[in-house]
């Protein structure tokens, strides 16, 4: 658990197993919601998350692997791919330049 300042988030990376399926879907949703926030949203396989990611979003079932590859990064773990509260919180925090616990 750490609190990060959402104003410092420049790049959000959504990770999934292959980096081709669910991450692409979630990333495009996030991108749509954050279009005006000046934040880059990318997707990637769990095993090769870009080093300049400020926050990593992934399913809770993959969080272990993401954490082991990126021990210092804040991770937002989601339970469902549509309308997860954690994602809603992240979007709200980025939009309001607030802070968020991850």
């Amino acid at each position, binding site marked *: 658990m750490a609190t990060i300042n959402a104003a410092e988030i420049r790049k959000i990376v959504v990770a999934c*197993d*292959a980096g*081709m399926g669910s991450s692409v879907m979630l990333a495009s949703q996030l991108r749509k*919601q954050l279009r005006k926030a000046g934040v880059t949203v990318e997707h990637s396989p769990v*095993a090769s998350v870009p080093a300049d990611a400020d926050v990593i979003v992934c399913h809770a*079932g993959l969080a*272990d692997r993401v954490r082991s590859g990126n021990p210092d990064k804040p991770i937002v773990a989601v339970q469902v791919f549509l*309308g*997860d509260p954690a994602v*809603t919180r992240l979007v709200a925090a980025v939009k309001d330049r607030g802070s968020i616990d991850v």
Partner: protein
Amino acid sequence: MAESYTPPVHGTGLRATVQKFGAFLAGMVMPNIGAFIAWGLITALFIETGWLPNEELAELVNPTITYLLPILIGYTGGRTVHGQRGAVIGAVATMGIIVGSDIPMFLGAMLIGPLAAFVLKQFDRLTNDRIRPGFEMLVENFSLGILGMGMAVLGRWVIGPVVSNVTEALGEGVEWLVDNDILPIASVIIEPAKVLFLNNAINHGVLGPLGVAESVETGKSILFMLETNPGPGLGVLLAYFLFGPRLLRPTVPAAAIIHFLGGIHEIYFPYILMKPRMILAAIAGGGSGILVFLAADVGLVSTPSPGSIFAYMSVTPRGNHLGVLAGIAISAGVSFLVGSVLLGFGRLEKDQPEPDEGGASGVTADVGASSASAPVSAGADGAVSHASAQSPSTTDSTPGLPKAGPAPRPAGSEA
């Protein structure tokens, strides 16, 4: 990916390790799925029994499956280990495996591609900074060339024959399962592993390579359908739609569309992870689907990826469409029925004091009751309970979901 071949040991549990290895295998295949689709379409259209038989174009079929696809896999596997140089030596080494084998060498390519790249990586590390100025190009080209030759020879003489035998033995094992009508039991393993995000590992890492070997021989394989059948997931989602936690229901239609038409199965995993006993519905659905596929004697030409109904129809050989559709429909029906029973036909909802607006207490109680009454499914698969244990929010967040569920739902427009 580059480092994952020789990963530093992270103490993150068996599941993460298996996932990581599976992702490494799948990572060699999945970037090349487009080429598989091209091959599948060529085969479905132009072979003798296809839709548009054409002898000249049918000549593409064998070289593509024998050479192009394994080399692409070896190339990609090499690239993940050691960049472009790894990719090139991976392709060279794969050639050694292919020549002299009479089955498509997918497993062999997945083995020797990264291995050759690993050897080259070690060599490059050794010679790094020791090459005299001006000789870099000479050394780099010849180190790759000589090591590549060595790996190709090793592949031809040692690794190729071993992998041939292993692939054939595995194929015979599968044949035995088919002959004895116990293939449907595979669902008991496949469905739980799938929702633990081992779906790509199972399908692209194991079943796909074996399926291709069979498909080349007989024109189709049922192995492509074991993991990719979208029926069980659809049934689970439908059960949730009618009988799931009331406030969760509005999220289901969009999920079902993305799952069944878009082929992104990950979307239904959370619905099982939040009520682990629902895995029984998926297993029942998957098993009955396989039973129907077997009875109708149908298969697919190539891997349907993503597991969408459209991908399914496009890689179904001529004359098999009815049986394939029937299997999918029946697996969806069975998993819907079992899922509905497991959800108590929504009765579990009504037993609770009807929550009016945002009154999540009813749902909370339901979730609590369900996890208490489902020790069988949770306990039967240690990993499942591990999943919910390590992320306590799996159950905790369920009551929260509904609040967020209907409101944002951006995916409605997505679909």
